[in-house]
């Protein structure tokens, strides 16, 4: 866990509302695991913005983030250019527990929940199938990145303007019936996570989901990012920043 100032080595756009930044932070990259996040200070804001790590390049010492412009903080961040410097705290949280590379895994992403899953596709490569859902063709992100590493990539849009029309859950239902997956990893809106968790549970597949909650310190001290989890001691409010963001789907209380 490091807090420091790091240079942006690449900045770009995925779509009108979705941006990406690669920054150089060798020590952070060395420590980082798939599914962790970084906490970025945005000009003039009291709270840092938590953004999941999309790709870790340990050799280059860089981390890539892909994020949506949601408010003033991320609007400022979206204007960052190569050569700018960012105040970043990370890597934070627990990553996805990864299976052996030769196993079959399914990643399911919805909208801005897609980026943190790319690291799993990098890891599992051909053993990974990906179902990626977006509102429409104007909101796509990372399709080519997933196609270059994952085995099969299924793209769904709500309005059918790109890929298949429909929700990711329809495709996931078909896939888990056809193929014996060893694990499912998902990130996206709560209704999607809930539905995917239920489908995985029906088939007895291990499922890990990455949650989101309004966050403060990012390191487990302030206790604001609460999520209700089944523990050995009963239902407890654990914290997305320190105990998550990745949780075992069967332990999450919706």
């Amino acid at each position, binding site marked *: 866990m490091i*807090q420091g100032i790091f240079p942006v080595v690449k900045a770009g756009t995925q779509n009108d509302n979705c941006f990406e930044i690669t920054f150089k932070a060798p020590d952070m990259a060395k420590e980082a695991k798939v599914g962790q996040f970084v906490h970025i200070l945005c000009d003039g804001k*009291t709270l840092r913005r938590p953004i999941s790590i999309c790709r870790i390049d340990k050799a280059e010492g860089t981390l890539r983030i892909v994020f949506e412009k949601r408010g003033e903080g991320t609007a400022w961040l979206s204007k960052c250019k190569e050569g700018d410097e960012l105040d970043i705290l990370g890597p934070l949280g627990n990553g996805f527990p990864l299976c052996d590379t030769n196993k079959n895994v399914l990643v399911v992403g919805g909208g801005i929940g897609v980026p943190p899953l790319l690291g799993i596709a990098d890891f599992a490569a051909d053993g990974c199938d990906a179902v990626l859902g977006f509102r429409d063709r104007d909101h796509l992100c990372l399709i080519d990145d997933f196609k270059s590493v994952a085995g099969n990539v299924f793209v769904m849009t709500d309005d059918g303007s790109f890929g298949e029309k429909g929700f990711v859950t329809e495709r996931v239902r078909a896939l888990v019936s056809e193929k014996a997956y060893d694990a499912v990893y998902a990130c996206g809106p709560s209704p999607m996570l809930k539905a995917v968790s239920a489908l995985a549970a029906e088939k007895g597949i291990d499922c890990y989901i990455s949650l989101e*909650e309004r*966050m403060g310190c990012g390191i487990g001290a*302030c*206790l604001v*990012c*609460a999520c209700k989890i089944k523990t050995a001691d009963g239902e407890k*409010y654990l914290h997305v920043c*320190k105990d998550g963001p990745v949780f075992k789907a069967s332990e999450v209380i919706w």
Partner: protein
Amino acid sequence: MADMKVKIAGVEFSNPIITASGTYGFGKEYSNFFSLSELGGISCKGITLEERQGNPPPRIAETPSGILNSVGLQNPGVDYFIEHDLPWLKTQDTVIIANIAGRTMEDYCTVAKKLDATNVDMIELNISCPNVKAGGVAFGVTPQGVEEITTAVRAATKKPLIVKLTPNTADISQTAKAAENAGADAVSLINTLTGMKIDINTRRPVLRNNTGGLSGAAVLPVAVRMVWQAANAVKIPVIGMGGICRWQDAVELMLAGACALQIGTANFTDAYTPIKVRDGLEKYLDDNGYASVGDIVGKVEVWE
């Protein structure tokens, strides 16, 4: 080099910078950034007699130059704190302050008695948590309430006792005096100001608790005014807090009458804030020829 040491109720602090309750957990997370011995002290997360799960999320909202929170005193309970957190904290070579809250006077006294039997350095009485009925705010808003709860807890412990005052009151000088009269060794202020933020698209309050406590830079001028009023009303030490982000803010609060300071929300923005504030304060003292940090306490020259 100015002398940064501060003494409150016989407890010596290496410097006046204390991290504020509710923002710093039990210190462990922040020890990743620097040795906690760099701090004057740590005021721990508020603890209650029994474990509490806190309020449902969302518990935080960003507001202009600040935040609203409604954590609702999530904590593992005093017994767990004494067994699991306090022993480690006591090895950190900094002053450890236990912040306590409760629903009833009896709860407060039981928690205070349990802590009395430990090596914790001080107790801070939280009678100003705005987010839960169990947070004791009912005691904190009137001088009578403050006097009643302080008297009871004073009788339950010999530990140095700090009473943390709420700004959500008619006259801070009266609640400060009430704490002093009832035997408090110091007062700390301000706790958060009750606030609300509404999402204009959903027409729902952002916080699941509807309202929460406002902190951060936005509250600094309120803190400066209230510390000044309290310091003029009592003889016991005043620990100032509310919106400190920079060393300049710390100097302001000390000139207003604070002899030590607590830093909370700014830790979220920059984990190194306490160190930066401490060093900036020391440089200010040196640059202006003060021999000791105590030399600026209450030295505001108000207009006649």
